[in-house]
């Protein structure tokens, strides 16, 4: 499996990256770890005449813990997320999700930036970032701008990032309360049949806030406002869980593929969401 020929660029700063993008437009693609792009190139499903390798561009490999937010550089790998003790304390849902992505070798290479920027509905980080209300910083010829994760995904592989922009970092408001990332997959290394990211806060015995996002159940990740709203003010009794699951099922739009027919995917989505809510609640 040999990909089509390409010109390889390895600039050492962002100006160099943007210059190649400006010169070649649609014919150029940036790559971080490459573990989404390279398989697509090998299968000749992606044609990339100009490949821009970001590995030598500095300033995108740090995890910064602020007092009210967390900034993660685009080149931070899933393995970096798993290994970072401070991050595991501040936002444990990130490690919980990262540990469920692919396998160790892929986690050494796969980056947070690549995972969220690619727009693959099967990727785990986009739904998680929507749950956490993260925003993505992109840089282009006109400078930097921030795009909320909940507004970033337009369709499969189509995002609010323009072709001449590069995603440089992810900023997450400091998460509060209980959390869970629950994922059903056929085997190690697979994408989700269904996955749910849940973050819940508690006030006394009732739910004060709930954020819910689902992975690989539509052509984009799905932030289900209605599912979260169904839990607020309840004690997460069975009736509330049923309403939340029904609300989520109204927001997703799965298609039949080799992971199963639509009815099966909806069933799994309900089971996974219920589990995730219960686990997040138990930790709130």
């Amino acid at each position, binding site marked *: *499996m*040999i*990909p*089509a*020929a*390409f*010109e*390889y660029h*390895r600039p050492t700063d962002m100006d160099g990256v943007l210059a190649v993008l400006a010169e070649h437009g649609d014919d150029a693609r940036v790559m971080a770890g*490459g*573990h989404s792009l*390279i*398989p697509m190139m*090998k299968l000749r499903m992606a044609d990339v005449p100009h*490949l821009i*390798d970001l*590995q030598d561009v500095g300033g995108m490999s740090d995890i910064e813990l602020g007092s009210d937010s967390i900034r993660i550089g685009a080149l931070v790998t899933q*393995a970096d997320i798993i290994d970072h003790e401070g991050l595991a304390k501040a936002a444990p849902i990130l490690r919980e999700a990262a540990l469920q992505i*692919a*396998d*160790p*070798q*892929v986690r*050494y*290479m796969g980056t947070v930036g690549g995972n969220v920027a690619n727009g693959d509905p099967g990727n785990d980080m986009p739904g998680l970032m929507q749950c956490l209300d993260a925003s993505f910083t992109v840089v282009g010829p006109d400078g930097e701008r921030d795009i909320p994760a909940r507004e970033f995904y337009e369709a499969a592989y189509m995002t609010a990032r323009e072709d001449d922009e590069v995603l440089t970092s992810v900023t997450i408001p400091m998460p509060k309360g209980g959390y869970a990332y629950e994922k059903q997959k056929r085997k*190690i*290394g697979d994408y989700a049949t269904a996955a749910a990211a849940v973050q819940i806060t508690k006030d006394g015995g009732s739910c004060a806030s709930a954020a819910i996002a689902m992975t690989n159940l539509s052509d984009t990740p799905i932030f289900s406002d209605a599912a979260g709203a169904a839990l607020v003010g309840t004690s997460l009794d069975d009736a509330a869980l049923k309403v939340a699951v029904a609300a989520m099922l109204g927001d997703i739009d799965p298609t039949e593929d080799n992971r199963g027919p639509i009815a099966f995917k909806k069933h799994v989505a309900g089971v996974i969401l219920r589990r995730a809510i219960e686990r997040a609640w138990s930790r709130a």
Partner: protein
Amino acid sequence: MSNKMHIKLNVNGKDEEFLAEPRELLIYTLRERLNITGPHIGCETSHCGACTMTIDGKSVKACTMFVAQASGKSVTTIEGLGGPDDLHPLQSAFKEHHGLQCGYCTPGMITRAAKLLEENPNPSEEEIRFGMAGNICRCTGYQNIVKSIQAAATEMNAAKEAAE
């Protein structure tokens, strides 16, 4: 056709320089160009782990890395771990505890296991299974592979203690 580029690699301690097309996959570079045939080509889709090697301290599947990306890096393959007369403790343990089966997955298994034991010298069975999840054995010989890694860990820890 893209232009060839000048590639520099350090493979098992030896510096290599050559011209290659950037699209050449690292696993092919090692096998076809440098005659390092320990790492195997299995699935070519980054699932099976037969091509696992250590690149700048990370376990990597070399079927999913372009030679251009690897330029300037240090690579360790099974050949860099031990030789016929000087087996790495993992190689001895795989031999001793029947972790080899047909042997096709073994170089990737051992290279990955070496990195795993470097990061976690006392892994539980569960940690071994989780840490080796990116390596598939088509003989499904996992039980003896786990046993072999456990035995090697014990051996390596004892040797380390004796040296201290």
